[in-house]
């Protein structure tokens, strides 16, 4: 077993400049030990190769939303191997996923990004038979329905790009198969954030963002695939456009939508466009805007600065997004096994609870329940009044006793999703038009 000692000498979690050499060595080691390794993984007792796996370092990249150092630390503690995180904004994530497939092992991406990335062949699907927690995954990601009789929302719903027919396919399957593109991890229902102290009236509709009373104090997100969906919710709520399918607009619908946005921009309706989490927090906390599209932890961040902010449920419903973990196509051998082990662990509850506590939802809700207190579960998932203070994962007080989550329970929120973030057939055209709107 000399081979297995080799990586030990070069193992170094922080000196990245050695990355290339170390990886080559690793592959050599894995090649020799591969028979033992795969037999171990299949029986579900990975301990056979536990010694070996300590030397593995997996490079994960993705948006900062879930690229949390706490997860890497816990992974090291529970599984023994290293997780190296790089966080980027969602545009750069897409870019890197496609153009530099060798620069990562695990991609933490959203489903609409997956729709762009997966066909390029940069990633490989996951064999769900190797995941012990596969059947714990919410049916939302399997058949698109939260409950048996639920409607399927418009847009790039995760289940539509969640499966491929076989190991080498790059086109998506219509129904669940054994090969999953991304293992879902995190998702949420988004809506408008408001400053209740500034808006001065109840906000009930997406159309309220276009109210002339708020001129110069509104903002929307400038990531085309997300922004266009917000825009569609707004235009539909205004009664200007009725879409056949918001998630897959025709050129005519795109033109109309962009015209309405351009006109609003000309009239000075928007104060700014934001692209990243912090921008939305700062816009809101500093009082630059009073109503804008927003993400739920951003609302929490504003509130934690002592500024009132509400994640306002609206009558037209939510725009949802979901993300998951996928494997780079170059992964094989020991590293691939480690990646499976990691992803299975991700679904096993600890991470889910961590994400739930930040206001997101875990893809395997039931497993995370075991890691949350009854009060936490009641507040975050069941829409019940908090009995004691609700703490953030880092231990800061997020909400005082008596608080109720905006939008209520998991079922109420995820049950009223109107559409998902999307990549349309006319994506190219839409992006061009969106760019025109931004530059106009």
């Amino acid at each position: 077993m000399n081979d297995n000692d080799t990586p030990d000498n070069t193992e170094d979690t922080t000196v990245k400049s050695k990355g290339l050499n170390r990886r080559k060595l690793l592959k050599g080691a894995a090649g020799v030990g591969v028979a033992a390794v795969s037999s171990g993984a299949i029986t579900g007792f990975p301990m056979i190769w536990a010694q070996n796996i300590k030397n593995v370092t997996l490079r994960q990249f993705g948006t900062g939303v879930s690229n949390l150092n706490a997860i890497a630390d816990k992974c090291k503690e529970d599984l023994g191997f290293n997780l190296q995180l790089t966080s980027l904004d969602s545009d750069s994530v897409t870019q890197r996923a496609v153009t530099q497939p060798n620069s990562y092992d695990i991609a933490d991406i959203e489903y609409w990004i997956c729709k762009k990335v997966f066909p390029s062949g940069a990633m490989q699907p996951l064999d769900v038979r190797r995941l012990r927690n596969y059947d714990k995954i919410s049916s939302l990601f399997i058949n698109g329905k939260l409950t048996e009789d639920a409607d399927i929302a418009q847009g790039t719903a995760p289940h539509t790009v969640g499966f491929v027919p076989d190991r080498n396919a790059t086109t998506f399957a219509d129904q669940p198969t054994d090969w999953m593109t991304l293992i879902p991890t995190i998702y949420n229902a988004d809506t408008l954030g408001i400053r209740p102290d500034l808006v001065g009236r109840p906000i009930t509709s997406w159309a309220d963002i276009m109210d002339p009373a708020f001129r110069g104090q509104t903002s929307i997100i400038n990531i085309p695939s997300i922004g266009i969906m917000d825009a569609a919710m707004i235009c539909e709520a205004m009664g200007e456009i009725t879409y056949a399918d918001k998630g897959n607009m025709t050129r005519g619908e795109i033109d109309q939508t962009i015209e309405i946005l351009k006109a609003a921009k000309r009239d000075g309706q928007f104060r700014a466009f934001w692209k990243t989490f912090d921008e939305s927090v700062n816009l809101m906390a500093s009082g630059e805007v009073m109503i804008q599209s927003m993400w739920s932890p951003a609302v929490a961040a504003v509130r934690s600065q002592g500024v009132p902010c509400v994640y306002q449920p609206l009558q037209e419903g939510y725009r949802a997004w979901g993300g998951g973990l996928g494997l780079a196509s170059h992964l094989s051998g020991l590293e691939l096994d480690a990646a499976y082990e990691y992803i299975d662990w991700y679904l096993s509850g600890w991470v889910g609870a961590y994400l739930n506590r930040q206001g997101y939802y875990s893809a395997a809700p039931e497993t995370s329940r075991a890691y949350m207190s009854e009060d936490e579960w009641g507040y975050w998932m069941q829409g019940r009044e908090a009995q004691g203070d609700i703490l953030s994962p880092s231990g800061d007080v997020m909400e005082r006793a008596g608080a109720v989550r905006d939008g209520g329970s998991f079922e109420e929120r995820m049950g009223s999703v109107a559409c998902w973030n999307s990549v349309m057939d006319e994506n190219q055209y839409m992006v061009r038009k969106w760019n025109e709107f931004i530059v106009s």
Partner: protein
Amino acid sequence: MARMSMAHNLHSYWQALPLTLVLLAFLVFPIAVIGIVSFWDYNSYSLIPDFMLDNYQYLLSSPVTLQAYLNTFKYAALTWFFTLSIGFTVAYFLAFHLRSTRTQTLCFVICTVPFFTSNIIRMISWIPLLGRNGLVNSTLQASGLTEQPLSFLLYSDFAVVLAYVHLYTLFMVVPIFNSMMRIDRNLVEAAVDAGASGFQIIRDIIVPLSRSGIIVGSIFVFTLVMGDFVTVKIMGGGIKANVGMMIYNEISLLQYPAAAASAIVLLATVMIMLVILFRLVDIRKEL
């Protein structure tokens, strides 16, 4: 002397080699790649080798391009005007009113200190300064000068130009100061003795003689503004756009061939302007 320069001549080739290699590998070659890719086709995840003019056709026919260029030129012109006015005044003060080299050096050091904070961090700190509830607005409101917060201070053309002036004025000050230091002080004395007013001295002696410094500074400011996107992104709040932002947007949306075409057009524009400016000055002599 002739014998020596012959020997040196041969040395010159290997001495210039490292620089040349770096420039070839990381400047000439990449630009060639951009040039080639600008004729390629693409879809949402990959580049398709091809030869087509669509990228240029779309670029040159789109009203957005025109708008972006107009914006960029507007920023460049405004920034040039302000950096030149401020830069000239500051350089004049440093060159003619400070007597010792030590005070001059000290003043320069004072001016450069703010540049040692990361640019990214410095940019976001304009927001608490200029925002609706920022320092400037609260001061104005507290002093009773304005009732409502002024919203044009941030996320506006004003904010963008302000940030440019902040970043680039020193690029104007240094070359102008450099030229001014070479002006023969006797000329100024003679003019004073001949009864010229302070204004006449500046107009007829100092401005013409620091012309080359002004041009070099203008080249710096102009090219920096033309190629920028970070400032516009942060100070414009995403609402304002220039050519750099257009390219950045295209890159971030994976439309590399479109971005490459925009980049080539931008490069051509900048180069044309520079050829004109370089005709007016021999930069090697001015250093």
